[in-house]
């Protein structure tokens, strides 16, 4: 009843092609942005901002990056965390070595360096596919961490290989409080998410999807294979790189290469599997699920302990988390390979007809 597009007529092509063709969607997105930009920083306390929402947004961006490559262009990758590491370390170096560089430019440099490495490790995708490509990107994961650990230049010859994010400021305004860091993260993520959404509606995005669906057919109709695949690697790595820079600068503050292990790559992959492969919204849903669920579980176990008086050991809670994640991933792969985003779409379709489905 609420979600019905009856009466919304589109009289121009522009109207027909806008990002959110339905009025209710536009209102919802605008409301969401208002809440995220204005209400959350006012209402949210430090714990929510610094420990829950900021990492959720950052990992959403990483998931979005991987989704562009894996979900839209069909190239399986296990190197998301490596690209994040490059973004973090090169942003650090940019700020360190270029005096007076604006922080956003440093993020962009971090992202571009990740994109360059992404192109190099994307080259095997021209010859190999599927599982074999995943193994090639796995090599990227190990090689990058090895290089960051071994080459002292990346961490400015720090004895422990750790980098500490420098202080940030934008136009003289210091970004130091959790709320400021949250707003910076949110702005970057919102802009990049909008860019990704638009990219996927453009010719490039359609080329990505054509390659994903059947690369032989795509090359027959004239889509340049090399350019398209490498572009997908570059854009995806750029997104992951910026996410890594935010991870270091707006979340952890101090990072060592070990923060970006294969474990994180897998987590980002799980995000898009649970959230939805080939969906912008899915990246956010998946990231929310994977980052917030373990915390919910551990906080929830405390509630159960105090309410029911049962003591739950930490081993049980942590192992439950692994068990639930494992089963959910299998469940999603079998029942709903397109993830939470597809479920949301189904709900929307049902809502359009509700309460009169016939």
């Amino acid at each position, binding site marked *: 009843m609420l979600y019905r597009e009856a009466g919304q007529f589109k009289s121009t092509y522009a109207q027909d092609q806008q990002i959110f063709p339905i009025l209710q969607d536009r209102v919802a997105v605008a409301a969401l942005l208002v809440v995220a930009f204005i209400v959350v920083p006012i209402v949210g*306390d*430090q*714990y929510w901002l*610094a*420990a*829950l929402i900021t*990492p959720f947004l950052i990992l959403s961006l990483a998931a979005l990056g991987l989704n562009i490559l894996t979900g839209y262009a069909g190239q399986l990758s296990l190197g998301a965390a490596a690209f994040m590491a490059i973004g973090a370390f090169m942003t650090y170096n940019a700020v360190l070595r270029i005096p007076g560089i604006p922080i956003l430019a440093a993020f962009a440099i971090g992202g571009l360096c990740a994109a360059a490495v992404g192109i190099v490790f994307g080259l095997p995708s021209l010859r190999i596919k599927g599982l074999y490509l995943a193994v090639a990107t796995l090599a990227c994961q190990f090689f990058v961490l090895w290089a960051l*650990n071994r080459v002292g230049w990346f961490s400015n010859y720090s*004895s*422990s*290989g*750790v980098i*500490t994010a*420098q*202080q940030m400021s934008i136009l003289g305004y210091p970004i*130091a409080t959790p709320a400021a860091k949250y707003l910076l993260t949110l702005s970057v993520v919102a802009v990049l998410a909008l860019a990704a959404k638009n990219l996927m509606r453009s010719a490039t995005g359609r080329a990505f999807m054509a390659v994903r669906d059947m690369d032989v057919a795509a090359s027959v109709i004239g889509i340049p294979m090399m350019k398209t695949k490498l572009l997908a690697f570059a854009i995806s790595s750029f997104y992951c790189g910026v996410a890594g820079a935010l991870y270091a600068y707006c*979340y*952890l*503050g*101090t*990072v*060592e290469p*070990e*923060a970006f*292990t294969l474990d994180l790559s897998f987590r980002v992959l799980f995000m898009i599997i649970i959230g939805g492969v080939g969906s912008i919204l899915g990246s956010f849903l998946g990231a929310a699920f994977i980052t917030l669920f*373990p*915390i919910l579980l*551990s*906080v929830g176990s*405390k509630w159960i302990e*105090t*309410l029911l008086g049962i003591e739950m*050991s*930490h*081993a049980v*809670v*942590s*192992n439950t988390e692994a068990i639930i994640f494992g089963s959910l991933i299998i469940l999603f792969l079998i029942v709903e390979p397109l993830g939470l985003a597809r479920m949301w779409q189904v709900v929307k379709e049902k809502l359009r007809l509700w309460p009169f489905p016939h």
Partner: protein
Amino acid sequence: MNRKLAAAAAILGFAINGAAIAQNEQFVPANFYWVGPYAPGGSGFGGGIIDYMQMLNERDGGINGVKLTWEKCETEYNNARGVECYERSKKKGPTGATVVHPLSTGITYSLIEKATADKIPLISMGYGRTSAADGRVFPYVFPLITTYWSQATVLIKFIGQKAGGMDKLKGKKIAFVYHDSAYGKEPIPVLTDMAKQYGYELIPLAVPHPGNEQQAQWLQIRQAKPDNVILWGWGVMNPTALKAAAKIGYPRDKIIGAWWSGAEEDVLPAGSAAKGYISAGFNAPGSEFPVMKDIKKFVYDKGKGEFEDKSRFGSIYHTRGVVAGIVTTEAIRLAQAKFGKGKPITGEQMRWGIEHLNIDEKRLKELGASGLMPTLKVSCMDHEGSGLVKFQQWDGAKWKVITDWMEPDRKLVREKVEADASQYAKEKGIQPRDCSKDAL
């Protein structure tokens, strides 16, 4: 419906109750780890500190009537989880988190700035950033008792002693097998500097996390035939290394472990392969110390102990946690004496307490911990406070202490600490404190 109402009432009742009793309490977060490849260390250390606080609550009713409270949070030795646990715990209790023991070098690094901004002291006892020993630049960070760099100098000294004098080190080969993380890399600059000074050759061999694959590293050791191996491992990496050494026939008494490589949990899984292995330590194992007997009597005999497996009682990690408990509660006691007895103290006051800690032999005796830990005297200049290290050897059934407390090369360590700290201060734009002024 009724059930829902009852649940709501229960929640409400709990909330009111919680508010009513949360007045005279001192909250200490227990952000450790009970799962994963590093769980033996995390659960042992965490168990020790909680057992000690529980014992004080049961025996003395807390500290001057202020009950100690804590809440566990699982960090999984993971930086991101550690930060989340820190953020979750910092506002709990009437005065917020009193002090945080991150129990991970990586998490310590991630928290240095956050904790300094929140005015919550960090105690990284035997781990963390070594240069934080310079209290002028790091007012809120305390790498208490001893640091990695101190330990590295003592390790080389010990090897020199065994060889019959430091001049005998010339031309020797020492392999350094380390956990490839901030933790393992931290001592490398000191070891290379000392290599130049004493003329030994250092062969660094990195073992990636979590360390259960070491074939390649030990093959290199077989080729290079070093005179000694320094094992700087953590968790599952330690028994794996000992087993790998046994496989290539490298003598175990030539392997000297760091203190995070020298607990029962590190040698027992290796079985007979561990016999003869030597490691450093800054606390002694054992259940015969008076303080341990008190923990047995007031906590374990009442069924409130942290360990289900009673054989872990008095193990190295357990007593190390007890030492952490002693350091924490002594600092609380000191801060209470200055800022008001019988009242919970804030993080800022706790910082003052830690900085003025002076645990001498007499106090150790009163605490029933003579020989459990070295004496400790912290100051604004020196946030380490002791630097002493002991060595112990595994005889196949238990750890036997084989040396007295050994002094580190204080001059070398201090020089490097000050150089690193001043570089950090410059990068961060921190104006180092003036230690002659005793500010809060």
